[in-house]
């Protein structure tokens, strides 16, 4: 057992190195600068390449190149920088290139502030970039899970030839928690049979997403859609349920921690509340959520935003269960006390409805 105290941002670096990531390019932006700074030390130590890029646009495109050349590549940023990366992410998806992008979310819109938020959910999960595509989105809620999910992110990026978003928030990035570093290395790093490393002894290859000939792009989109269907099996969630639950609290990331504390307190006060935490936001655990929601009879979604994941919660329950929302936007973090008040309010709606 090798438990080390780690800051969330820095553990992402550690996990990336352990996963065999050997190229990082990033542009400084708060609250994720510790990722860039730790990469500046750890990447060269590990025989990899570190670059401080001139912009987030340059950073993600440098990763595009490194990934095309066959290397596990990663960039990290926060919300405004994530906006800048959207075009390249669409290209990564269209060209089917493996790449990991960490977004340590902060308050927005615009320049916003540097406090934690979850207001990039739509951007990460519903697109952000143009075209019909999906990112795999992993949402850690502890420093230890950030380590494990970063390892997983690289594995999934290669397994599916897809961009993977590690969606964290400013609080998780700054938290320090113990991490068991013996979580093990990932499964083997598959050789990329699509990489461009010079046509020695083989036919030349190309990487492209421009498909102009009649019907070709449509076919490619159906191919991507089929791939996204196979990615559904990567869905992950966590549930804490009890008999006789009357409310299901749904939250991810740092909201889920505050919600977990609120649920614990609620139960201590005799309230029947369950807790559901999506761990992948795409694919979204719709089936499991619908099931749990039906058993509880009412849902309260908690987010650090004006309400984004709540739409997927509503889609998942498909009108079968009422869904309430509590959130704080603009970089504010809900406290367990506030969430408990929201829990009480949701429960009181049960008796009147």
């Amino acid at each position: 057992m090798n438990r080390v105290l780690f800051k969330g941002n820095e553990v992402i670096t550690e996990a990336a190195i352990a996963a065999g990531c050997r190229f990082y390019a990033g542009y400084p932006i708060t609250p994720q600068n510790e990722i860039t700074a730790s990469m500046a030390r750890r990447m060269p130590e590990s025989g990899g390449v570190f670059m401080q890029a001139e912009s987030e646009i340059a950073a993600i495109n440098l990763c595009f190149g490194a990934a095309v050349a066959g290397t596990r590549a990663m960039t990290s940023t926060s919300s405004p920088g994530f906006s800048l990366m959207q075009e390249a992410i669409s290209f990564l998806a269209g060209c089917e290139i493996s790449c990991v992008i960490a977004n340590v979310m902060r308050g927005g819109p615009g320049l916003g502030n540097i406090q934690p938020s979850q207001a990039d959910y739509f951007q990460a999960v519903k697109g952000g970039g143009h075209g019909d595509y999906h990112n795999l989105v992993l949402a850690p809620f502890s420093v230890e899970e950030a380590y494990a999910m970063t390892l997983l992110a690289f594995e999934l990026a290669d397994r599916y030839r897809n961009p993977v978003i590690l969606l964290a928030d400013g609080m998780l990035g700054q938290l320090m928690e113990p991490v068991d570093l013996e979580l093990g290395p990932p499964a083997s790093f598959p050789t990329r049979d699509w990489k461009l490393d010079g046509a020695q002894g083989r036919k030349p290859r190309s990487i492209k997403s421009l498909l102009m000939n009649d019907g070709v792009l449509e076919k490619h989109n159906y191919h991507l859609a089929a791939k996204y269907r196979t990615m559904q099996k990567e869905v992950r969630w966590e549930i804490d349920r009890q008999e006789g639950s009357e409310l299901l609290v749904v939250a991810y990331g740092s909201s889920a921690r505050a919600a977990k504390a609120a649920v614990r307190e609620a139960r201590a006060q005799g309230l029947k509340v369950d807790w559901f935490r999506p761990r992948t936001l795409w694919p979204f655990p719709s089936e499991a959520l619908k099931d749990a929601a039906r058993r509880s009879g009412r849902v309260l979604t908690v987010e650090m935003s004006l309400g984004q994941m709540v739409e997927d919660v509503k889609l998942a329950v498909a009108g079968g269960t009422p869904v309430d929302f509590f959130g704080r936007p603009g970089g504010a973090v809900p406290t367990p006390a506030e969430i408990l008040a929201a829990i009480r309010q949701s429960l009181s709606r049960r008796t009147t409805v």
Partner: protein
Amino acid sequence: MKLANPRPEALTEFPNIYCPGCGHGLAHRLVAEVIDELGVRERTVGVAPVGCAVFAYDYWNFDVTEAPHGRTPCVATGIKRVLPDRVVFSYQGDGDLASIGMGEIIHTANRGENLTVVFINNANYGMTGGQLAPTTPLGMKTTTTPAGRSESDGRPIRIPELLNALDAPVYLDRQSLHDPVHIRRAKASLKKAFQAQLDDKGFSLVELLSACPSNWAMTPPDAMKWIGTELVKTFPLGIVRDRT
């Protein structure tokens, strides 16, 4: 009977879709000839731009990747940083390099990345139908400067001269593809630029003045003549920096 001009191995058999008289056909062939002469076809990776040459991967017989518009030097840098023994080059037009990609080319040159950049200057945005480019000469009519480029559109940008303000680049040249003599000189310059990469010298860029007969509304021979008499007034030919 001997064939004096065998097809370069670094070119595919695929006929190019460029307009009649377009300089891209020439530039692609010159790059291919240089790569063959240097014997590096099997370790070359090219990065194609967004522009008329977006389909360059159909014409070159080596690994080529697409890149988001203007980010071509970043993609090239990413490849070269992780595969330093490969020959990596970017091939870009006026919009890709001098407009949307201006930030990227300056920083790539400034870091002295060991890359070769082929910059095709045809004084307009060809692919999209002939709009103003950073390289459009004053007075020239385009679809977005119907009255001719005026001062308020900015004056044309000379890229090798601009990059000459940076410490790192080792080879910055401007040549032209407008007649046999200049086409041969252009090839020699490209060869120097690629050799600089093979010698690990650093960043090199060769700008090539290139005909766009369609958007200039000229016949190909007239377009070639216009380069030689008019375009060179805005973009003088010759070495800007040679530290190879």
